[in-house]
């Protein structure tokens, strides 16, 4: 069978043939070949598949691909000249907000959704924004610090 849909990912248009039951995660990874988006559980339990759809963080393993048709999708690979994404990447690198890197794309996407709505989140707001993302390496501390650093970068603050 299969149906054809258009996906707008990182400001690029992709025309793909999909099955109705295929998840957005599967299509992004296997059909479009953007493997930065991970999958760790396929049950909405780990968040490593998180992408941003129309400005909001969603689990790409819990969204069927056809649901994303026509929507604006951002993955960790990102689009050129995205200042916010660049700041988040820098924050994670400077503060050591990752170890094995497997959960990182999901965290970066959740951070993107958070900071685009709330550029100066409190520690508590950061924690809440990340409840849907599991990390097993870092104990989260440096991830929170990374987002705080990214927040400083976008608001032009100097580092102490």
């Amino acid at each position, binding site marked *: 069978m299969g149906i054809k849909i258009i996906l707008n990912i990182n400001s690029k248009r992709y025309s793909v043939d999909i099955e109705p039951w295929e998840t957005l995660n599967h299509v992004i990874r296997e059909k479009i070949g953007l*493997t930065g988006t991970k999958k760790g559980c396929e049950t909405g339990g780990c968040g490593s598949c998180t992408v941003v759809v129309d400005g909001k963080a969603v689990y790409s393993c819990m969204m069927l691909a056809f649901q994303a048709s026509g929507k604006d999708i951002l993955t960790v*690979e990102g689009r050129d000249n995205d200042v916010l994404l660049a700041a988040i990447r820098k924050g994670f690198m400077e503060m050591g907000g990752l170890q094995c890197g497997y959960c990182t794309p999901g965290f970066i996407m959740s951070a993107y959704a958070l900071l685009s709505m709330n550029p100066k989140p409190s520690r508590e707001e950061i924690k809440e924004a990340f409840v849907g993302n599991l990390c097993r390496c870092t104990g989260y501390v440096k991830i929170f610090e990374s987002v705080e650093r990214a927040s400083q970068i976008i608001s032009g603050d100097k580092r102490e």
Partner: protein
Amino acid sequence: MSETVVSLEREKRFIGSPLKTKEALRHVRGMGKFVDDIKLPGMLHAAIARSQLAHAKIKRIDFSKARALPGVVDILTPEDVVRMSDPLPQMTVPPASNVRDYPVAVGKVRYVGEPIAVVAAETRAIAEDAVELIEVEYEPLPAVVDAEKALTDPPALVHEEVGSNIMAHVQYSYGNIDKAMKEADRIIKVRLHFHRFSSTPLEPNAVLASYDRSENMLTVWCNNQEPSFMLPQFNSALRLPYNRMRFITQDIGGGFGCKITNYVYVILISLASMKVGRPVKWVETRTEHMLASSHGAERIFNVEVPVKNDGTVLGLKILSIDDDGAFARHEPAGLTVWAQVVPGAYRIKHVYSDMYAVFTNKCPAGPNRGFARAPHSFMIERVMDIVARELNLDPAYVRMKNYITREEMPYTTPNGCVYDDGDYPKSLSIVLDALNYTELRKKQRELWKEGRYIGIGIATTLDSGAPNFGQVKMLNPRLPLVGNAEACMLQLTPDGRFVVRLGTVPQGQSHETVTSQIIAEIFDVPVELVDVATGFDTMTHPYTMHSGTYGSRYAAMGVGAAYGAAQKLRAKVLRIASHILNEDQSFLALSNGSVVSTRDSSKSISLKRLSRIAYGMPSMLPRDTEPGLIVVNFYYNGLVEPDERKIANLALTYSYQTHGVVGELDPETGKFKITKYVIVDDAGRIINPLVVDGQVHGAAAHGIAAALFEEFRYDENGQLLSSTFVDYLSPHSVDLPDLEVHHLEIPSPFSPLGAKGVGEGGGTAHVAVINAINDALSPFGVMLEKSIATPEEIFRLVAKKSGLPL
């Protein structure tokens, strides 16, 4: 064996610096390469048919419907596996080693989730649908789920060929326990149950195997933590010589020990590829991971503790039973690995340990962060608290009383381990100060009057690093393993850059970065000029049979190999420079990418120029100097096999950590909420604080999770009740407390740069939290036996108390 701490001739630029990690650069862009990110032409996808029952004879398997599904290419059956491969070598001794261990169930299934067959299909979805169509007819057998019963009153035998359910039985006797028992004022009895859990790395196990018939060459991309250690397994099971097998790892999404026993899946998928003659990829689902990858072993302790009334702990008389599941795949190594830290951080002189490992109808056990030392440390740190409670002493006092002191370092334990250096009392003092301990104890008592129950927990554990493989000989003298060694290949390329290939197999420990820091430091070049190859490759990387990342070994072993390689290469560079510059070597120094004379600044040559000469103009080299600038270095930690009394130093470095935790118990629901968390960690010389802090935080998070949330629970039929992240509860951002970290930086006199291995954290957090909960429960006169404190269990204990709190 001891090498002294190196003194570098100038102010350090890179070692000790919180350098951004090289790995981060790709991961923040989604450019990491994990097994599932790799595709090969003609690649098939595998799904695995698995046992629904814990213990049953397989009467019949019908593959016909599955084979008929369009898109199914082939099925690897148990018959195929038996025909194509030999049983996996066993670490244990007869009769337990009589087990015929195949990567699929042959004749009977022994745990829920045990592989039965592999479907290779054009897509993953087809493979999964085909698995659903495989019909297995079982004849159920009683399931062995209780380790003590497995030993004393077995409902069945997991392996008939063994004749019992005993996987291994060992006795170690250090000091003189009988004397200690006689000299004691009291003997305190303790029963503890270290539960079953794992660190559940976020990247599941994954294998991409590609067998080329024309070349008789197998190439495998996998996320095993120590492929070279597994070569004998691969060799036996796949019937291929080492030089016909290539195992490659790239980025690995967390390991924590859980990705050691996945060699079984490496073999299984390799066999599938060998059968179909096409590349086959298998990526584990989360449920498969929970059911059938690797669980940390359960251990039941019955301990007698001879003590003096002043709180001195004289000895430990231990009877323990490990529940290692259905196969001995890395276990029963846990019966020896704990011996790295026999007395914990304490001056305990007499230890007798009678240990059993048993087979049960559960997922095979394997290493998990703090392998075997975490359960042992759990026991010791619970013992310290229980001794304090029984003697009506403060737990901090009892620890101070028994700690090995700085003055006694290096300290030789009763079984010959040599604790390198550290200040355990000081680490506790820092924790107590941070908690405002004395005041807090007063406040605790006042709050009891208001019906509020806070608990304070402390614990000190050792994270032994760079282990001595000779310890497995205490279990099985025939095993061909001793010491620990690691390899590094270092090249100065003709354009003046560096390439490093390590035998270590990192899973997020930033070996690329830390190794670059060392090379950059020694050659005084920017770290950007140093490329450390990602991952490991048996074809292109040097290795030993110990290579890999496990046992907190990188800081000594990986660093040692790289540091030695750099020294060798540096010596050659200086020799060449001396010849070319016509300057005595003692006046040559490496500075800013050049070799310069310290007395005549006109004499200088860039590394780039020197390297071009080394590769391109051999006639300009000194006589007896080979062209090229490639060195391979093997570093050996100098540890030897145990003597007949089972005495030897079993690890090179002994980092340690003391944790302090405060929390409050809600007696109405049993929920314990952590309100303060303090860590003191001593990792010796810190090469990169970002990396070390990350390991400290991560280990703490795992320990807290194990104490509060995570458990693999089986029912009486051997069905796993927690097989997804919905049932198996790993902690999320808001579930963990803020962590306050302090460092002591007492270098190891034994490791090449003074660094001590970290990462496993010895399970400090786990027992610190359990101690805190038991402390909160103390007014109720009750105590947890298990190492997990669910609210329900706490609630039950509180409800059980008689009368009002004290």
